[in-house]
């Protein structure tokens, strides 16, 4: 109760402070309201791209994590090269090069699908590392034990390793998903009409910076806050002794 009360009090105090400081800049709502459809379409695009990239990056990440543990060296080195390259480059560079470089060269012009693929490849590299760390955190003794009872390699992954990996990696993966939603904003530089693009457009058309960008921030928070709260909840829930 005390927590909720002090939270509300703080919220009120900060809102009042912001209002005093910026109320002059926050009066042009009428004009911005006229662009609400553009804004909501942008939000829908952001949600769609994030959801698609979430699924695709999970698949890419899992396959890469397995490839990194493969005993077939060309596969393993390919996975290592992919992960290290992607993690060593800024997302903006990947977006620009991926779209204006590679996609244009092969004649692939659908911005949204290119955007989803670039975002998935970017996020997939991080998810691959999270999964790999998760697999390696399962002790040697568990592999021994699985081999001792006669499980095959595939069965060991399925019945022994993955169930334990899942519990280990859920919190960091959820965190990565929240990053992915935020990172999708960078796709505005290749002209995908997602949320940031829409807000920027409205700002240009109405010269109402605050009225365009405050809702922008709020809409991202509506997507990311539940994810990070869920992450916190998972962190407290999944710990068990080994």
């Amino acid at each position: 109760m005390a927590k909720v009360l002090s939270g509300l009090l703080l919220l009120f105090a900060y809102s009042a402070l912001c209002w005093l400081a910026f109320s002059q800049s926050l009066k042009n709502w009428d004009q911005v309201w006229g662009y609400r459809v553009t804004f909501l379409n942008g939000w829908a695009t952001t949600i769609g791209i994030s959801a698609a990239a979430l699924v695709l990056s999970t698949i890419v990440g899992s396959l890469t994590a397995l490839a990194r543990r493969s005993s077939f060296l060309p596969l393993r080195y390919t996975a290592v090269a992919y992960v290290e390259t992607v993690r060593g480059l800024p997302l903006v560079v990947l977006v620009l090069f991926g779209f204006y470089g590679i996609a244009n060269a092969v004649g692939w012009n659908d911005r949204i699908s290119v955007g989803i693929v670039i975002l998935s490849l970017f996020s997939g590299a991080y998810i691959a590392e999270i999964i790999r760390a998760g697999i390696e955190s399962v002790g040697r003794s568990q592999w021994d034990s699985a081999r001792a009872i006669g499980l095959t390699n595939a069965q060991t992954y399925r019945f022994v390793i993955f169930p334990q990996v899942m519990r280990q990696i859920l919190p960091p993966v959820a965190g990565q998903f929240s990053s992915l939603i935020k990172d999708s904003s960078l796709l505005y530089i290749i002209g995908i009409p997602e949320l940031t693009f829409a807000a920027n457009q409205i700002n240009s058309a109405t010269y109402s910076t605050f009225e365009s960008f405050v809702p922008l921030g709020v809409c991202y928070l509506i997507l990311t806050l539940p994810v990070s709260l869920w992450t916190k909840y998972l962190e407290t829930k999944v710990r068990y002794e080994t």
Partner: protein
Amino acid sequence: MKIRLSGVTKKFGPQTVLNAVDFEAEFDHTLALIGPSGGGKSTLLRLLAGLDAPDAGEILVDGDPLPRNEERLRVHRSHTGIVFQAYNLFPHLSALGNVMLPLTEVHGLKASTARDRAMDVLNRFHLVEHAAKQPAQLSGGQRQRVAIARALAVDPAFLLLDEPTSALDPEMTSEVLDVIVELRESGKPIILVTHEMGFARRSADRVAFIAEGGVLECAAAAEFFESPRQPAVRQFLERILKY
């Protein structure tokens, strides 16, 4: 049961843990492997289990050579009961789940049959009330009994126990040793690595002393402890039985 090693060598990197071991032992119930840490006891047990393959030499169990290829080794492991020092239960499964997993996935039993068989074994070790608990909720002794139940439930040809009581306090140690004595009476051959000399003396048929990468001495338990022939064995026993 009869095991025979000829020219068995096992290296880990630059270190030779077993060096061209020739050894033969025949026993009815229990063979105890004792000796100083790092002498090769656990390595020998892992070779017998089929968890590791020797770098050279051959191992025969009841006259049959241990296979070399991984798939046949896996089959060998599935018919061998292996228990580790650190229990190595699967932490995400209940005690019952741990015992059932090899039954359903390796030995192809139906879930209901597997459950009945698992509960039988848990019952035998007085673990029924703990069947639904996860390993983290069990005491060390209970965990090790679950591990033994898991190994035994598949009706293995023999059991290999690697220092099954080394991680336990004295009370839990006797709780686990009681179970091993019961196993012995049920007639499953057991090979165990142990530091419990009193237990080895009372319950083992034969005792083998392993040190410096080889088997220095192997004799009937009473003879081994009363009149060891090798000076190294005498020294070891004197030191270990001093207090």
